[in-house]
């Protein structure tokens, strides 16, 4: 694509993204927000799995660090009905702080993440998820235990990302919390994609790919293997932390249950379905895995074969787990490089045909 049409496409995308909250109902906005949080975190994991060749089952842990980190840093200073006391920092500072916190947590794991390779790292990191759950349940003065903690709404320079403060109506559409967060999410996703793509194509990205393909060869070329592996893990945790902040804002109130082992598996599923190492693929996978149960649940009344929640038969969450369990198996058996691979192959076919 030459430069001018590409710019036109970019402008078009921005306009559509900017206009969508005018049309979408709150269910779709909520679903989109959860998806955006998942996209950011999934990009982090795909960098770790696809580029550095390291497997992590601890991604949910770092998402939790980001989510709870934000809730604590931004929370009001007095403990109230909403949960334990926080530090009362300005939201933007709390967001940056939460991401940094997730990064520190990832870096602290580096004695293991730097030395243990691939799937073994996956098994070792399994410990973090369970440890994290334990801490979340027990450190009640910060996390509120199983009752969870309310998340302070985001705000920037006096503009609150909540239902009021100030009241805002655009083209007769009242702009509430969800509409405002949509823009925050869109900006963060765009930044995450941009940074991720650049990382893959940069010097450190190529170094990581070399580490993945052969540690000894990488070491021979002067790449500090241990340091790079630890750094990849840290960057991936920071992505998870940012995704966590977004998820926390979307929820409004976070509980430990949302950040368990199953979430870690969900993230792996997103990455695999999208095609490990592909930033766009991870985003697509994240939307698929996050939105599917919500959408099925929303329409469970009108879809055949699906039972209402609580009734007999296959419920929405089960149906979606069946679908993506089968999706993993199918992807790994028939299209190892996931959705992004399918897209790439069809593109190269087009190119070939156009050459003929």
């Amino acid at each position: 694509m030459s430069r001018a049409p590409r710019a036109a496409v970019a402008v078009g995308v921005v306009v559509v993204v900017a206009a969508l909250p005018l049309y979408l109902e709150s269910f779709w906005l909520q679903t989109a927000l959860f998806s955006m949080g998942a996209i950011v975190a999934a990009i982090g994991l795909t960098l770790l799995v696809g580029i550095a060749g390291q497997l992590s089952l601890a991604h949910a842990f770092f998402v939790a660090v980001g989510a709870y980190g934000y809730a604590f840093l931004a929370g009001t200073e007095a403990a109230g009905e909403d949960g334990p006391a926080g530090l009362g920092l300005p939201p933007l500072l709390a967001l940056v702080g939460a991401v940094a916190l997730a990064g520190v947590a990832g870096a602290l794991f580096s004695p293991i993440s730097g030395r243990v390779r691939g799937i073994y790292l996956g098994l070792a990191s399994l410990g973090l998820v369970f440890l994290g759950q334990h801490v979340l349940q027990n450190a009640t003065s910060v996390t509120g235990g199983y009752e969870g903690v309310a998340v302070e709404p985001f705000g920037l320079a006096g503009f609150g990302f909540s239902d009021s403060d100030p009241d805002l109506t655009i083209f007769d559409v009242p702009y509430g919390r969800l509409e405002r967060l949509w823009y925050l999410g869109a900006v963060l996703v765009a930044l995450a994609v941009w940074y991720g793509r650049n990382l893959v194509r940069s010097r450190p990205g190529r170094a990581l790919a070399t580490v993945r393909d052969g540690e000894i060869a990488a070491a021979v070329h002067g790449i500090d293997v241990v340091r790079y592996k630890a750094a990849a893990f840290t960057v991936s945790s920071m992505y998870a932390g940012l995704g966590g902040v977004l998820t926390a804002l979307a929820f409004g109130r976070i509980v430990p249950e949302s950040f368990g082992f199953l979430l870690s598996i969900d993230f792996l599923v997103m990455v695999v379905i999208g095609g490990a190492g592909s930033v766009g693929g991870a985003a697509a996978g994240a939307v698929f895995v996050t939105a599917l149960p919500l959408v099925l649940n929303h329409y469970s009344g009108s879809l055949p074969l699906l039972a209402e929640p609580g009734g007999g038969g296959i419920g929405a969450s089960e149906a979606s787990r069946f679908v993506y369990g089968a999706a993993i198996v199918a992807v790994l058996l028939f299209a190892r490089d996931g959705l992004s691979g399918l897209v790439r192959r069809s593109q190269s076919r087009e190119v070939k045909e156009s050459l003929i």
Partner: protein
Amino acid sequence: MTQFLSLAVGGLFLGAIYALVALGFVTIFRATGVINFAQGSVLLVGAYLIGRLHDPIGFWPAVLVAIAAAALISLLVDALLIRRVRAADLGTLAILTLGVDILLSTEMTREIGTDVIGVGAPWGADVVELAGIRVPASRVIAGAVALVLVAALAAAVKLTDWGVAMRSAAEDGETAGLMGIRLNRVAAGAWALAGVLAAIGGLFLASFPAAGVTPGLGLVALAAIPAVVLGGFDSPGGAVVGGLIIGVVSVLCAGYQDELSFLGRGIGTVAPYVVMLLVLLVRPSGLFGTRELTRV
């Protein structure tokens, strides 16, 4: 002191169950290089079948059916899925089994729901007492069964043709294949064996003092993973030792919960993972694992 002893002994018996499940992981890993995340849900299927069938067909037939079914499922996972992508890297294979695990455990969650299904074992809730140490009968039996199975397995691996084939496949699959060892058959045997071990482990994990079969049983079985990692992934002996360590540590932590209250409630369930992380800090390839040596 008596409390400490009974906890330690109880822990060893629990550890014996973990050791069985862990041996399943190691067997599959040695024969086919797959880390099988579906082990937990195969275990759940086994326990579930015993729970559902012990009433209509009697306990022992139900156990046999469950063992056969678990072995068959495990075998099918290998024959239908893993075999087609044998050459793929470890991560891919592991994630493939995660997919299978999602399918199986979702179906099991749907079947069981919020029920707690008793396994109807003839030893019920009996407690054995010796020198002031009280241990549930089911755990003692589990320990004995584990001891017999581990010994039998060790002998089989050492002495039988199957064992030789298995060891050579683990050592160097390609060469073993060239020497006329049927790798697919070795793999099938290993997967089936792991299914058998999982079903037996499931029976005992769901027996007293546990209330019965719940969908959470698959997650309980995950505690065998720290055992495997502790022992080093390719070492059957390590899996047994790792299982015992994990069992003792988690029972001790649960038993001394009040003294350990500064660590929070429910420390018993996370203790295995903490131990695993600590050991990995010192020895990245586990206690008995083969250190990866690389030459250029």
